[in-house]
């Protein structure tokens, strides 16, 4: 299977295919003024909170304890299992404990985290510089795993697992995702503008690890400076092509980007490797560059702080574990109490209720939205079956049908028409004139179905326990009865013998 033939003048069929794919929506970008600001580091807060689970997979296991003094870049928690990632200290300081802290999660529940009190010295472990092209692909993957790099676009999938995919069969195409289709967010935009070298170098390293011969960097057309900067830097590498993709939400969704750039559809029960593609976020590529070239583990990231209720929206370089309150303070605080505080973008982000929540590896944005921006003043109305959601869905589902079935309580019926393929991008809810919270219906249904499945498995296991217990009771009862019968037979025999002996003596 060859590499896709993508040129700047795509063939007619490709143009037609792209034109006919009318999914998605065009929300107001609202990238400025944050997109025009240079990335600025945030001063260290009084306490850093590092949740043990900042990634998909098993939580990391702490290797330090309260009272330990650590240096920047030192390992604090090691990965557990294949799908996991380690955690490193973002700065030097004292470990004050491992406790439960509020984390970015819709339930509002807390999770265990390592608490680190910076000492202000910011001393780091010594790092070694390496030439990535002297390393084998397997070694690159190992070092990326050891550096704790996860998907920085928000998915937080451990990057090393993707890098290992090319071990048996090389994956011909690497796509870097510079889409950043969510409104307000510009962290990837600024990264591509200010540090294109890191992104390009990271791309080359990843390509070496997976065996890719072609690298495509997809950037939305609303970021012309980023496209120019990347093109300029990648000019000496003919295998890299920077493609402008339309500014449409959710163009940054991995499957949608692959389909646009290569024309291939990732199978719904497969992965992107099945169509010969591996995708990484541009931020992840930059992190891989730092991890391999300089041995620097993942301890900081760029975060966009924006929204109508923030005094000075800007892009910040933040140490992982910094509480959100420090970011807000650095940006001048609130101009008014926000109607919603969102971690991430407005389409898929998480509404948080406390400013003590820390920035984690996947946090790309913090938005303080006013009531006008959220447009939440309208209550949910009846579905008028306008079909806007059907036109908007990038996966080709029927959100109105699925929601109607969920509302009626028939979750299995909603799964029949494709609930499991929903990527929860939020486009359908965004375009709904009746303001129906469609994504919440789908998330609820997915969770409820998973919960029932767990219950079903539990019931099956319990049934086995009950049967085993009944069998055991029967066996015990049987053994008791046998033993009793044996003893009775013994007694009878003893009695008969005694009687026979008495008889003998009598006759003798």
């Amino acid at each position, binding site marked *: 299977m060859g590499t896709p033939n993508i040129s700047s003048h795509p063939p007619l069929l490709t143009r037609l295919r792209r034109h006919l794919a009318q999914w998605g*929506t065009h*929300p*107001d970008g609202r990238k400025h003024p944050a997109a025009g600001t240079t990335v600025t580091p945030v001063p260290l807060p009084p306490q850093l909170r590092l949740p043990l689970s900042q990634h998909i997979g098993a939580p990391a296991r702490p290797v330090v304890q309260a009272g330990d003094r650590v240096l920047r870049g030192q390992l604090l928690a090691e990965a557990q299992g294949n799908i996991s990632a380690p955690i490193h200290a973002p700065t030097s300081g004292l470990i004050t404990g491992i406790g439960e802290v509020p984390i970015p999660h*819709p*339930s*509002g529940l807390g999770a265990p985290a390592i608490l680190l009190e910076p000492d202000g010295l910011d001393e780091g472990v010594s790092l070694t510089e390496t030439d990535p092209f002297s390393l084998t692909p397997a070694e690159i993957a190992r070092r990326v795993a050891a550096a704790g790099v996860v998907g920085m676009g928000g998915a937080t999938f451990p990057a090393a697992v993707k890098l290992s995919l090319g071990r048996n069969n090389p994956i011909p195409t690497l796509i870097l995702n510079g889409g950043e289709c969510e*409104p307000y967010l510009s962290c990837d935009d600024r990264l591509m503008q200010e540090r294109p070298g890191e992104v390009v170098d990271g791309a080359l390293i990843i390509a070496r690890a997976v065996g890719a011969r072609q690298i495509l960097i997809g950037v939305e057309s609303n970021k012309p400076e980023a496209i120019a900067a990347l093109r300029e830097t990648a000019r000496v590498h003919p295998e890299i092509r920077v493609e402008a993709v339309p500014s449409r939400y959710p163009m940054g969704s991995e*499957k949608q980007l692959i389909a646009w750039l290569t024309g*291939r*559809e*990732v*199978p*719904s*029960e*497969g992965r992107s490797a099945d*169509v*010969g593609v591996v995708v990484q976020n541009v931020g992840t590529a930059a992190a891989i560059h730092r991890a391999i070239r300089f041995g620097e583990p993942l301890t900081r990231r760029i975060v966009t702080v924006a929204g109508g209720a923030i005094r000075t929206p800007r892009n910040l370089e933040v140490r992982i574990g910094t509480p959100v309150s420090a970011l807000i303070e650095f940006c001048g605080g609130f101009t008014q109490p926000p109607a919603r505080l*969102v971690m991430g973008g*407005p*389409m*898929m*982000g*998480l*509404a948080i209720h406390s400013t003590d929540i820390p920035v984690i590896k996947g946090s790309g944005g913090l*938005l303080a*939205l006013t009531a006008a921006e*959220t*447009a*939440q003043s309208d209550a949910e*109305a*009846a*579905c*008028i*079956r*306008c*079909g806007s959601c*059907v*036109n908007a869905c990038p*996966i*080709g*589902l*029927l959100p*109105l*049908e699925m929601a109607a079935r969920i509302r009626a309580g028939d979750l299995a019926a909603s799964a029949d*028409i*494709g609930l499991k*393929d929903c990527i*929860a991008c*939020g486009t359908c*809810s*965004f*375009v*709904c*004139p*009746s*303001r129906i*919270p469609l*994504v*919440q219906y789908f*998330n609820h249904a997915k969770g409820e179905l998973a919960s029932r499945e767990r219950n079903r498995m539990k019931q099956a296991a319990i049934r086995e326990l009950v049967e085993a217990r009944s069998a055991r009771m029967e066996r015990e009862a049987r053994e008791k009865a046998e033993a009793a019968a044996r003893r009775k037979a013994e007694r009878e025999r003893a009695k008969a013998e005694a009687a026979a002996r008495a008889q003998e003596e009598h006759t003798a």
Partner: protein
Amino acid sequence: MSTVFASPHAHGARPVGQVMLLVMLALLPATLNGFWRFGWPAILLWITTLLSCLLAEALCRRLAGQPVRSALADGSAALTGWLLAMSLPPWAPWWIGAVGGAFAIIVCKHAFGGLGQNLFNPAMAARVMLLISFPVEMTRWIAPRPLGSDGAPGFASALDITFGAGVPDGLSSASVLDHIKIEAARGVDIAQSLGDSFEPVMASLGDRAGSLGETGALLLAAGGIFLIARRVIGARIPLAFLLGVAVPAACANLLAPQAYLPPMAHLLTGGVMLGAFFIATDYVTSPSTPLGQWIFGAGCGLLTWIIRTWGAYPEGIAFAILLMNAATPLIDHYTRPRIFGRRRDGRSLAPQER
């Protein structure tokens, strides 16, 4: 723990009320043209129908214990009344409009469960009920008597026409389709009967007998194109509807011009423009899948042509739309789009298949 707020935390759609307002805006030119052509009685009938719909809506919401104001504010009842009024004979008595409006809202909308739950288009169902129950009043067409011209009734006579004694004898006139059907039954060649009653340009601007919505076909088409441009309705259903009427008409006319009307005549007479752009495109009663919308529109158009050509009624739009409404759930079920990453039958794509 405070409430969980689900994403997305922003919205980009225009609210339902605005959608209805845009549709009413698109209807305005043709309606005003109709008012001018048919005078005060038409205005009075339109007002009566709308009021009846609004009152029925308020009554039903009150009975259901739900807020009344939001229901009236979203404009759906008013729009139903407006479309119903556009399809009635302009000088019909007031109770036609009142009964039709109340039936449309109470039986065709709220008895099914309210906004978004009805299976049949309320305006068309009400029109058909009126047509079957009161055939005389529903087929009494009037030749246009523009406001201010001789022969146009003044306000007082209009009150009498709408609320009192009704249309004076001798004033009724046949609509184009009526005339053609009658003549065809008598064996007169279509071209001849068409020629002396139908003049395309004038007809498309409303200078002949018909309902408020029949006359002014071009104005309705303009309104429809405005709605498509503003993305209130899609282009699939109107296009399919018009093609569904025009293509069979063209084929038949080619084969036997003396017995079958040419496509242009079909498109500009009767309620085709109103039906294609405003009635068949009703969100609730039309399919939501892309292919389904093509099928629905084409089916409406084809059925309209069939009923007009071979059915007993001169105008077939209302029946055609109701029949296709009944088929909409079936169409929706069988025209589900292909899910990304899956084959049409629902199974996952194999690696590197597409």
